[in-house]
């Protein structure tokens, strides 16, 4: 099957997939950060170092929101 497409076509497919990956990361990172921040404790959010995943995930913020 792959041999049926020209080299340019296969190149374009590859470029397309790489770009798609870049676009997906560009789109999703802010949401990931939003989600992770919502699970952090206050002091970890406003601290001097940012973590990719909270040290102790907490539902404290959701609690304040809903109750």
């Amino acid at each position, binding site marked *: 099957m792959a041999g049926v497409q020209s080299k340019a076509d296969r190149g374009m497919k590859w470029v397309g997939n790489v770009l798609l990956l870049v676009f997906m990361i560009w789109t999703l990172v*802010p949401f990931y950060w939003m989600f992770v921040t919502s699970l952090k404790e206050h002091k970890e959010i406003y601290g001097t170092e940012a973590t990719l995943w909270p040290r102790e995930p907490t539902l404290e913020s959701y609690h304040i929101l809903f109750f």
Partner: protein
Amino acid sequence: MLEGRFQGSGTGDARPGQVASLAGRPEARTSRLSNWVNDQRVIGTLFVLPALAVLAFVVVYPFLSAIWMSFHDKMVGAPARFIGFDNYVELFGDRHFVKTIRNTLVYTFFAVGLKFLLGLGMAMVLAQPRRLDFIYRTILFVPWAVPTIVAALSFRWIYDDFSGLLNNFLIAVVGMQDVISWLGDPNYAMASVIAVVVWSGTPFYTMSFLAGLKAIPKEMYEAARIDGANVWQEFWYVTIPQMRKVFTVVVMLSTIWTSTNLVIVQVLTNGGPANTTQILPNLAYKYALLASRLGIGSAVNMVFFPILAVLIYILSRRMLAERE
């Protein structure tokens, strides 16, 4: 006319003489009122009237009222005092105002331009056949679907000097030495704001361009290939010309929407370090709602409106001009 034949039958018959005279004047056969009511144009106008009324109240009246207010000194709650062009004199005497105009033009130009390029790129990527492409389409659409203020707050936090994702990432992964104040440094603030506007607004371009791309018949590409076109030529001679109408509509709409969007600037920088990100809608908001000076706020908009109108005119002339 039948009544004339059956004399005396039924009630309310027309007599022969009557029928003859009636036949000569057809317009008297039905009353003028029912004629008028059944006229298509009248019915059409009546259907449109409610929409016209809404437009008049919601668009025309506020617009005229804003023009009127710009020539008065009107504080909220106080009666208006006519002051002629004083508001405009005050605006143009302030050098920050001219900077604001310049900021608006720069901001709009780069935001729309980047959205266009990225949107077209995303659309072309999504137009490629792929398994599960509905998932990619949905995910790439989300930034536009999310409320602008949510996006703005999210990025306000990503851009934060010490707790923000961006600085921490750059320091940890790329080895940057010191934090960059993305929203506080006059050199970076505008670019940072534009990045958020682009992030938030590109999906509109992407989806519109994707629809446009899918409407291009495949035979055109095949014909181009037979003529020996390479990928770049296919793009330039088939894709771009076929997309011109979509480009026009999208760019015109987006120019209006982008230039009048005050939310992102307001949330991220509130006009920015030393007015570097101040744009006209924000200035109008500050004068009219924060300082309660409706008169000069309207004047800002009266300056803004012609600039916008000229932009749209230039764009539409350029893009709607038919090439042979």
